[in-house]
């Protein structure tokens, strides 16, 4: 490779990075689904949403692996712990929102089959403004992880 071509490629790469950053809506990282214990018909998915664009909202999710996906928060009220279904999860501009064990999560209701470590769950996230995001979420064994509320 001569130097001119090298410079051009670097140039293109830089331009590409800038272009994608400008167009970028929410991005997803650290996604995982909890492997299901025997007998369980539900599962929970967790991920981190980084929203480098204008304010948006996560408004829903779908997966062929479950009958229905719901956005949930874990709330403590009068000494009782409720899972509360949310209509949406707000994503303020520039914010990072974490869905973590014992907090916000996506609940998979009526899973089609048990979810085993090593499996992947296809999932589509819907946003109020941004385009859908397709995910291939790895199933992980929660017992082997260090989790915190």
């Amino acid at each position, binding site marked *: 490779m001569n130097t001119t071509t090298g410079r051009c490629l670097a140039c293109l790469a830089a331009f590409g990075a800038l272009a994608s950053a400008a167009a970028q809506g929410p991005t997803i990282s650290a996604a995982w689904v*909890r492997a*299901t*214990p*025997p*007998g*369980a*018909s*539900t*599962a*929970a998915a967790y991920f981190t949403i980084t929203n480098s664009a204008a304010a948006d909202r996560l408004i829903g999710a779908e997966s062929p692996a479950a009958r*229905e996906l719901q956005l*949930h928060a*874990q709330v*403590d009220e009068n*000494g*009782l*712990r*409720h*899972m509360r279904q949310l209509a949406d999860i707000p994503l303020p501009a520039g914010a990072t929102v974490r869905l973590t*064990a*014992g907090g916000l*999560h996506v*609940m*998979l*209701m*009526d899973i089609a089959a048990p979810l085993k470590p090593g499996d992947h769950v296809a999932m589509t996230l819907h946003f109020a403004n941004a385009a859908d995001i397709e995910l291939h979420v790895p199933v992980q064994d*929660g*017992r082997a992880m260090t*989790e*915190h*509320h």
Partner: protein
Amino acid sequence: MSAALQSRPWLFVVAALAAMVVGLITASYLRPALPVAPPAIGGYVLPQPRDLPRVELVDGDGNRFTPADFVGHWSFLYFGYTYCPDVCPLALIELASVKTLLATEATGGSAQYYLVSVDPARDTPERLREYVAYFDASFHALTGSQDELRRLAETTGSAFFIPEGQSTDHYLVSHSSNLVVLDPAGRLFAVITPPHEPSGIVADFAKIVAYRTTQP
């Protein structure tokens, strides 16, 4: 006053001091021990341990289980259900860590761990047994009628209810996330409230066990 005391008045002081010392030592033996206050934990220790109601439950093998079966070892009870995808697995993972941490301890090593279902309509004994065994092979599952479970929950500082307006098949149950601690007499002894960390539970349990040794 004797001649000896008249000529040596300091003897009187010595005698008085000696009497005082003897009196204090005697008193310290005779005085009943001051009651030891329950230790501060992440939750509370009952000032008076409470007997459980005479409920009839069913264990994971489908056998009859009564509070008498809690006698002989410390017990940890968590009220949850298998349909719960987030906090219940998390709580049982934490309990499995607690069990590992306590395994080598004289008292804690024999402690038993129970998931008490708050969803008897869907959680059959068999389903519960498989579910708890996933977290630890020695974990126990308990269920029973709605009424029996409610009586047990209410006596142990726990609660659960099914919020209205949900479908009959796909409903969520609201429940307290307390960890109930029963003493080897099978009485409610302490309640550990969330947030739960295995190391915190182990530290609290050590205080609870130490406190019980001071109780009659």
